[in-house]
């Protein structure tokens, strides 16, 4: 590790109603990978957005390479050599990669307002070559996978000759192979003396990549520690402010053998290839696989949200023709999207109203008016049954935390009398503390006889929760494992068959996972 690059002291920042940062501290040295962790809303992203010039601080000071600096805009940050890669991808899909990388700094021709496209492409090619990225600068950004777009964002950040590179949850959408490629590039940069801030929720990644860890909670900096000297349990307890134990994987008891859902030879283009499986009553069936393996596509197809080319679905042994989500709900199937805010909830509506959205007819009076009393009773029931933390049923759902929002969605599907629940990434974006509550809830539901399909990219979650595990890769089911015999390695073997985009053939500093 080198000299101190960035020193942030006593940083304060308030938004209407929220004290986002409360005397936060942060130190970054040259040539280190510094992981910043904390629960949702702990202030990690806010602190880094202050450093990147996106938010202005209310109080405190920032020292950069020994001098106090004021960073008023993203552009000012870039000039200093501070770049941030955001959680949401920030590319312009209609522009080419080259146009994206050099947006705002396009090489011009003799006349100032004219672009020099040739030079633009050449510069980008050189940049990609230096990162050993196999990408054509003239491709449109929209045509790339999320992982490749991420690499382009890193390339863009590097093109500023950044000394400080901030990555906000860079691996959220990446596969294991792609994460390894990302880490490879991060290590290269570190060795060149770049200071890297890495915001993440994935605790298991830290030890692979980081030199130091700073933990934040409630807008405050709790501590900065050497990665080598701490355990994950210690980090978690610093994050949540109490000690919670990640329970050892417990395999729930064997479900009864009655098959409630059977899918035969489901096909759709290249997204779903000949998928067949069954789901038993009271069973949690884990769907493992990498991002883009086709798990969500299968779920949406069963739910009638997307059409299929061919295939049959049987419910309780009888052939079912589900052509729309409406049909699916009538047949007792509920789908809980990974993107709750977009597909699962009416954010502006209150808790009670959201619960009855999927079964509105049951809450109408003879005249077609809404029976407010019934809505109230139903809401009350599920708020208690699922222990949803909300001041009242009148609270708007957008003001709830991620975990409680997820519970409202679950309440909605239970209200609709669904027997088959498809959970797509049920704990994405949910705090460590709230996760175990969701797990317990899933177990309870299964024990009550509901059948659950759980799609998850987090292997520990899959291993801990599932009775059986189906693994998908590139639209196919490549393996099925019983809970007892499944291991992370076993699942990954079935799940990885994809080639990489970074050329790792030259001697790398350290590469853990080989290319599949």
């Amino acid at each position, binding site marked *: 590790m080198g000299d101190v690059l960035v020193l942030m002291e006593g940083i304060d920042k308030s938004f209407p109603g929220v004290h986002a940062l409360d005397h936060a501290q942060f130190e970054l040295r040259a040539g280190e990978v510094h992981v910043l962790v904390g629960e949702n809303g702990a202030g990690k992203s806010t602190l880094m957005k202050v450093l990147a010039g996106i938010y202005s601080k209310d109080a405190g000071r920032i020292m950069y390479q020994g001098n106090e600096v004021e960073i008023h805009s993203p552009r000012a940050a870039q000039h200093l050599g501070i770049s941030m890669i*955001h959680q949401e991808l920030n*590319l*312009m899909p209609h522009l080419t990669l080259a*146009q994206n990388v050099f947006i*705002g700094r396009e090489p011009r021709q003799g006349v100032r*307002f004219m672009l020099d496209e040739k030079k633009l492409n050449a510069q980008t090619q050189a940049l990609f070559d230096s990162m050993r990225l196999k990408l054509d600068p003239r491709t*449109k950004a929209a045509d790339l996978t999320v992982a490749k777009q991420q690499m382009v964002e890193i390339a863009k950040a590097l093109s500023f000759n950044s000394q400080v590179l901030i990555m906000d949850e860079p691996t959220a959408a990446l596969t294991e192979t792609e994460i390894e490629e990302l880490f490879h590039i991060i290590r290269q940069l570190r060795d060149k003396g770049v200071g890297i801030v890495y915001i993440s929720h994935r605790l298991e990644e830290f030890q692979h990549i980081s030199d130091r860890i700073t933990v934040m909670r409630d807008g405050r900096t709790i501590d900065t520690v050497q990665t080598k000297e701490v355990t994950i349990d210690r980090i978690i307890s610093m994050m949540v402010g109490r000690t919670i134990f990640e329970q050892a994987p417990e395999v729930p008891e064997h479900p009864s053998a009655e098959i409630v859902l059977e899918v035969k030879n489901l096909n759709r283009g290249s997204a779903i290839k000949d998928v067949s499986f069954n789901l038993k009553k009271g069973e949690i069936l884990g769907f493992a696989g990498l991002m883009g393996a086709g798990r969500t596509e299968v779920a949406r197809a069963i739910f009638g949200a997307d059409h299929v080319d061919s295939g049959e679905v049987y419910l309780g042994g009888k052939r079912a023709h589900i052509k729309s989500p409406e049909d699916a709900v009538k047949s007792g199937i509920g789908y809980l999207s990974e993107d709750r805010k977009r597909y699962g909830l009416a954010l502006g509506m209150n808790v009670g109203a959201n619960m009855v959205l999927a079964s509105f007819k049951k809450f109408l009076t003879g005249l077609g008016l809404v029976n407010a009393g019934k809505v109230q009773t139903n809401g009350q029931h599920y708020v208690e049954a699922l222990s949803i933390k909300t001041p009242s049923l009148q609270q708007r759902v957008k003001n709830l935390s991620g975990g409680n929002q997820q519970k409202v969605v679950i309440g909605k599907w239970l209200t609709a009398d669904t027997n088959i629940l498809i959970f797509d990434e049920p704990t994405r974006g949910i705090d460590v503390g709230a996760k175990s509550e969701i797990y317990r809830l899933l177990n309870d539901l299964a024990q009550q006889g509901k059948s659950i399909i759980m799609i998850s990219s987090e292997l520990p979650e899959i291993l801990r929760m599932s009775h059986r595990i189906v693994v998908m890769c590139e639209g196919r089911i490549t393996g099925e494992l019983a809970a007892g015999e499944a291991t992370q390695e076993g699942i990954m073997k079935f799940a990885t068959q994809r080639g990489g985009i970074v050329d790792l053939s030259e001697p790398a500093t350290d590469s853990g996972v080989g290319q599949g």
Partner: protein
Amino acid sequence: MAAIETTTAGVKRSLFHSDATQKLLAFAGLIVIFVVFSIASPNFFSFENIVGILLATAVNGVLALGVTFIIITGGIDLSVGTVMTLSAVMTGVFVTYWGMPIPVGVVAGLLTGATAGLCNGLIIARMRVPPFIATLGMMMIARGLSLVISGVKPIYFNDTPIYRQLTMGSVVGTVIPGFAIPNAVFILFGAALVAAFILGKTVLGRYDIAIGSNEEATRLSGVNVANWKTAIYALGGVFSGLAGVMIASRLNSAQPALGAGYELDAIAAVVIGGTSLSGGEGTILGTIIGAFIISTLTNGLRIMSVPQEWQMVVTGAIVILAVYLDVVRRKRQ
């Protein structure tokens, strides 16, 4: 080897990529309309009638060029029609009332349009009023100002007969006798070339697409989005100003009550030409084809003695059809 593969992939991509297919589709539509009308009416496919169509496209086409830039940002401009009229009135005031030379009048018209566009841009980018509302307001303001300034009566260019020649004369006709295509048509093509150059080769065009593609990302990349957006609306205003100068010349007068409804034809041309209302993509060639489709339809239906009321119904249906085809095609991809 790899290079060849990339090139063929590139060609394939550009052929089947949305912009190109939509343009092909629109162009094929134009041809079909031409063929149908030619069969239906012997009067349709004549030199004079085609010149008539070209001339009828000129003003709407120029308006549509400006609107293209604005719709690519994901915005909309409802004020182009009445701003066009205001520009025509200002040109009339300068040339007829104040006796200024014609070039000064033309510049005054262009500047009027630019100013109105600049106001639109500032209201949208700085005051953060949604484009629909901001330009709706500007539409009414420009209409009102046109009536106030002109005293609610037309301003004629009878003292300056040369002004009418600006669009209705034919430089080509004097060079090649018998080939009397009016200047207005060449002004349209010239304006289209300039627009295509701006969109494809300049910084303004690049940021136009970038803003429409992902405004927040563009802002975070250090681009001053507010300023560029303002510039784009001002550019749209310049095209409205040019349309005003042209229509005043064509009618030999500035008609202050004219203009409302022109914005709809212009937006329709842009949309038929494949520019996405959600922003990020669009082409000048598409817009020009779209403008030709609208004027060819109007012309053909008139020749077939379809009443004007029904012409509107058909044009409306075509707009919906064009966008529907685009939706279907996108869904397939």
